[in-house]
C-alpha cells in the first residue's frame, strides 16, 4: 500500500437492522491526513458505519478495506484508535484508575508482567501528557469530569501511536467551552502528529473551524468533499433549514 492510497476504502456498503435499512450503498474514501467529520441526523447510519469499519458489524452488502486489506484480513488493529459513543457514560464507581484505563489501550499482548514495565509507564505518561491529563494518573476515572474522562479515553485510543482515530460523538454531555478545548486538541493531533481523524458528530458548527473534509450521511451518502465546498452546498443549506444543531465555537 503506498502513501497516496486511501487508508480506508468504503465501497457500496449497505446495512440493515432486521428490516430497517440503515445504510444504502455508501461509497467514499478516508485519506491519510484527513480530519473528516461524519455528520447526519439521528438514525442516519453514522455509528453503524464506524462499527462496520471496525469489524463490530458485518455489512449486508459491499466491502471495507483498511490499508488495502479487507476487515477480515486486517489484523493490525492497534493502528486504529477508537473512542466509542457514550464512552463517558461509565459507572462512576467502577474501580479503575486513569493509568489502568490508558494501559488497556496498550494491547492484549502485554498481559504478562514485563521487564519493560518502566517503558510501559513512560508510554502511558506520554499518552496522557498529549491530552493534558498526566497529573491524574492515579485518579479513579469516575472522579473526573466528563471532559477529563473524554481526554483519558482519547489517551487510551492514541497510546499505541495509531495512524487513524475514530471518535463517535465524543462531546456529548460536555459544556461548550470544554468542547472548544477538546476540538483544539484534536486539531493538534491531526496537524502536528499526522493522525487521521474521523469524527462522528451532530455538531455541524465544527466544520467551520477544524475539519478538512465532510461526509454527510442520511442512510445514503449525501455529500463528501472539503468543508469549504460543504458550506456552500445545497446539503448544508438544507440542514440549516431543517434546524440541525449548530454550536458556536471560538474563532
Amino acid at each position, binding site marked *: 500500500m503506498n502513501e497516496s492510497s486511501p487508508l480506508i476504502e468504503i465501497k457500496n456498503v449497505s446495512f440493515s437492522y432486521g428490516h430497517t435499512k440503515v445504510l444504502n450503498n455508501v461509497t467514499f474514501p478516508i485519506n491519510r491526513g484527513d480530519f473528516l467529520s461524519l455528520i447526519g441526523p439521528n438514525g442516519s447510519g453514522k455509528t453503524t458505519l464506524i462499527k462496520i469499519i471496525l469489524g*463490530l458489524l458485518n455489512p449486508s452488502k459491499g466491502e471495507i478495506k483498511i490499508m488495502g486489506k479487507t476487515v477480515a484480513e486486517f489484523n493490525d488493529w492497534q493502528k486504529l484508535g477508537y473512542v466509542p459513543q457514550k*464512552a463517558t457514560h461509565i459507572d462512576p*464507581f467502577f474501580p*479503575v*484508575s486513569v*493509568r489502568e484505563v490508558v494501559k*488497556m489501550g496498550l494491547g492484549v499482548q502485554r*498481559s504478562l508482567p514485563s521487564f519493560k514495565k518502566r517503558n510501559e509507564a513512560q508510554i502511558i505518561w506520554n499518552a496522557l501528557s498529549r491530552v493534558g491529563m498526566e497529573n491524574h494518573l492515579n485518579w*479513579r476515572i469516575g472522579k473526573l469530569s466528563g471532559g477529563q474522562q473524554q481526554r483519558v479515553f482519547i489517551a487510551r485510543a492514541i497510546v499505541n501511536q495509531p495512524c487513524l482515530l475514530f471518535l463517535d460523538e465524543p462531546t456529548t454531555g460536555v459544556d461548550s467551552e470544554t468542547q472548544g478545548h477538546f476540538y483544539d486538541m484534536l486539531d493538534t493531533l491531526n496537524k502536528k502528529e499526522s493522525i487521521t481523524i474521523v469524527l462522528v458528530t451532530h455538531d455541524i458548527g465544527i466544520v467551520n473551524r477544524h475539519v478538512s473534509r465532510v461526509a454527510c450521511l442520511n442512510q445514503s451518502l449525501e455529500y463528501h468533499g472539503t468543508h469549504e465546498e460543504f458550506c456552500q452546498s445545497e446539503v448544508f443549506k438544507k440542514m440549516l433549514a431543517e434546524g440541525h444543531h449548530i454550536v458556536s465555537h471560538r474563532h
Partner: protein
Amino acid sequence: MDAFLSYGFLQRALFAGIFVALACAMLGVFLILRRDAMIGHGLAHVAFAGIAIGLLLNILPMTIALVVAVLSALGITALKEKAGLYGDTAIAIFSSVGFAVGVLVVTVSQGFNVDLFSYLFGDILTIDATEVALSICLAVAVVLIVFLNYQKFMYMTFDQESAKVSGVKVRQLDMLLSVLTAVTVVLGMKLVGILLVSALIVIPAAAGLQLASSFKQAIGFSSLISLISVVLGLFISFYLDFPASGSIVIISFFCFCLLFLVKQRR
C-alpha cells in the same frame, strides 16, 4: 493458637481454604462488575443436581457436580447470547431447573442423607489430603488463568466494545470466565456448602470494592478480606464449635459492613 494449628484436619482446612478464598475473591470482583453476581448462586444450585446424581449412582459426586456446573455455565452464556435474555434471567432458569432436578433425584434416592447434608452446608473440616491437593491445584489453576488474562478480563469488563475493537476475543473470554466460575463454585462447596458458596464469591469482593480506587486495589482488598474471613472463620469454628461455613460468611459480612462504614465517613 498452637492447639489450633497442631491438628492435621485444621491444617488441611486452612491450606485448602486459603487457596479457594483467593480464587473466589478474584473472580468475585469481575462477576460483580459484570453484574453477574448471582451466577455463583445459580451454578451452586445446578451443582446440587450433580451432587445428587453422583450420590445416587455412587460415582464421584464432586466430579459430576463439576461437569454439570461447567456445562451449565456454558449454557447460561449461550442462552444470554442466542435467546437475548438478561444474565439474571438465564441464571434463574438454570438455577431453578438444576435445583428441581436435584430435589427429584434426592426423592428417587429415598430421602436426604448425611452425605448430601455436608454438601449443602460445607464440611471443610473433614477434607482429606487428596481433596486438599485437588482443591489447591484447581484453585491455583483458576488464579493463574485469571492472572494471565487479567488485562483482557479487565478491559472487557470495563468497555466491551472497545475491547473487541482492540482484538480481545470477548466471546471466548466470556465462556472462559463462566467455566472458571463453575470450577470455583464447586471448589467453594467443600468450604462453605452449596447454600453459601455464592456468599464467599460475592461478599469479600463487594467489601473490597468499597474502598478500591483501582482495579488492582479491588482485587487486592477482596483477596485480603476473603483470606481474613476464611482464617478467622475457621478459628471461631474451632474454638466456639460453630459451623465453619456460617462463621466464614458472617466474618466476611462484618468486613463488608466495616468497610462500608469507613467509605461513608470519607
